[in-house]
């Protein structure tokens, strides 16, 4: 903060005048078109875990390519003999004698679409892998950090919650929707750190609200054979099955 304008000469950065105008508003030294670049909003740069995920993506694409030959009906293909001349005929280059197979009969076969898809997918995946690898080498060359350790910890952290969701899914046929949802609805916030009494009450109310609105009121479908409800006497069983 400057006190008065007599110390002008101390500020070597500003030759002509101080950045503060006389009435106190700030005037930027930056050139106007450098202030906001809209492109920055959409700027994309490859982050750390990119190389690893690109490798996995390319592996998946190649996996499907390998199994294309056996899993898409390629073995049952019906193609006219003399494929080269057939293509030439289709593109209008030559005329063929006799009956020519309709192109539609070939297009209907089940392997056509996978072939076209893989023709786009596999090169795209490999090119992406190459670009990611180039970027990785560039970063290494400039001694920029390239370790993906932090990303890997983040990926592993999410797996814990995947486990919770899968357990919830497997629990519903045993304990019924009401009980499982309330359990998950209380456990997850507790695990995430919301442990005070107010939060526990809020979690309980929200999970009960979800069960009542979606299951009892709107009657969305939940598993119909529930071990816990089967232990109940018949009348209650019907009631619980319909409304919870």
């Amino acid at each position, binding site marked *: 903060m400057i006190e008065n304008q007599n110390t002008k000469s101390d500020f070597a950065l500003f030759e002509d005048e101080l950045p503060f105008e006389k009435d106190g508003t700030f005037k930027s030294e930056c050139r*106007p078109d450098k*202030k*906001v670049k*809209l492109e920055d*909003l*959409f*700027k*994309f740069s490859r*982050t750390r875990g990119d190389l690893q*995920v690109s490798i996995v*993506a390319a592996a*998946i*694409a190649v996996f499907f390519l390998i*199994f294309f030959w056996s899993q*898409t*009906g390629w073995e049952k293909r019906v193609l006219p003999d003399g494929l080269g001349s057939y293509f030439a*005929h*289709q*593109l*209008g280059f030559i005329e063929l004698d006799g009956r020519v197979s*309709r*192109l*539609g*009969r070939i*297009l*209907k*076969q*089940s392997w056509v*679409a*996978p072939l076209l*898809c893989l023709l786009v*997918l596999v090169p*795209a995946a490999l*090119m992406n892998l190459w670009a990611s690898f180039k970027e990785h080498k560039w970063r290494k060359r400039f001694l920029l950090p390239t370790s993906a350790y932090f990303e890997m910890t*983040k*990926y592993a952290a*999410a797996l814990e*919650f*995947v486990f*919770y*969701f*899968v357990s*919830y*899914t497997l629990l*519903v*046929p045993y304990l019924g929707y009401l009980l499982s*949802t309330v359990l*998950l*609805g209380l456990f*997850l916030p507790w695990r*995430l*750190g*919301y442990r005070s009494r107010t939060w526990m009450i809020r*979690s309980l109310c929200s999970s009960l609200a*979800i069960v009542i609105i979606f299951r009892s009121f*709107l009657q*969305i*479908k*939940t*598993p119909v054979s529930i071990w816990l409800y089967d232990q109940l006497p018949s009348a209650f069983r019907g009631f619980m099955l319909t409304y919870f």
Partner: protein
Amino acid sequence: MTFPVIIAILIGSVGGVIIGAVPGIGPAIAIAILLPATVFLDDLISLVLLLGVYGSSMYGGAIPAILINTPGTPVNALTTYDGYAMTRRGEASRALSLAYSSSFLGGVFSILAALIALFVFGPYLRDLGALFGQRDIMTAAILGAVLLIAAHRQTMGIAAMLFGFGFLIAMIGRQSTRGIDRFTFDIEYLYSGFNLIVVIVGIFALSQALNLMVGKDDDPPQARITGGLFTGFRELFGKKTVALCSATYGTVMGIIPGVGEFVAQFFSYSTARALSKEPTRFGHGSAEGLIASETSNNAVPAAAMIPLLALGVPGEALTAMMMVVFFDAGIKPGPDVFENNPDFLFSLFMALLIINVLVLATLLVSSKYIAKMIYIPNRFLGAFIMILSFVGVYSIRNSLTDCIFAIIFGYIGYVLRRLDWPLVPIVLGLVLGSIILEKLTAGAGQIKSAIDLINRPVSGTLFVVILFVIGFIILTSVRNRRRDYQN
């Protein structure tokens, strides 16, 4: 217009605004979760409810974007630039009222454009429908795919790869009556293929839930809304050119399949800045910037209905979900919808209009209360998105395996989010891919030779457009690469 329908419109609109206002939940997640729940309601009620969410969430998304620099829905990203700057100057209510009025203008503009088009072309639509056969729709879907990839300027390769994966997912399945068996590996679950809602709930909702739970809670600053919210209208009136220009962009971009809100916003923002007398203020609290972004992003939903209804080709992920909503209500979008359900179209757009008006009225009155939604802690929110997702997924096919696959897709979506890779291509790959597959099988009968694919008026024109777009992509990427090497 019975009483339950009115209630449904109210709940849908207000609910949609609230959902949009909570950063972390977007309309896609909400519709995915509410969709199976509406099966038991009357068709019209469920349709109107989901339509309300669809049309109103972008209004709500502006609230956190302006107040705490966090977009409520991804499409409000540009609003944060100018909106938050205004808040920092203490002009929060001005920003909010500008945002609401511009959104209203954008929405009403595109709805009116659609209604006028319906009136003008209505009598001819039935004959127009005859122009659109299977091959034409297939070409339109391919064009949508190409435009989608082109729209991801800097990540085209990744978008193409993810689109391919989405297409691959669409292909998995077995159809015994047609002799089709693709990638099922003789696993019984895969015979019926992957359901769109399972993938959407996974890739959008569950991935966001994981993201929120693994991350930290934000500490949003106290956001105060004082003063009247009506000043924005007057200001909007003074900047008619920008507003109308952006609204047109939004409408046109919405109609073109595959393009969506992001590109609409981007273009209208850039144009507004180019045309403006004060370009330097953009990004620092320019009213024109705010108007540009909000008008265009709210013009897109109504306009995106047009290719969906006319061709059955949804232009973006959200509209693809509305397609499922229509199916469940017994309406199959496509050329025959003009023949079979012409009144439906009219009522649809009228309902959207009413929703826009209702939302505006609600917001003018209760912004203060809705703004409180931004204080829900992130991780708590993530936990409840996870619980709600089970509801959304299980009800579709009564399948627990679906839920397991949903969380697998959720994990994939989570990894993609961390890498900053786009999520939309996978979903649109699934949607457009299944359309292309189906139309190819159905249209193959009439294809005698290669020229039959494009010798119809519509598919021929679209094919030429596709070639142009691909040529444009190649040209610009070659030019960019050359420029990169020069720098």
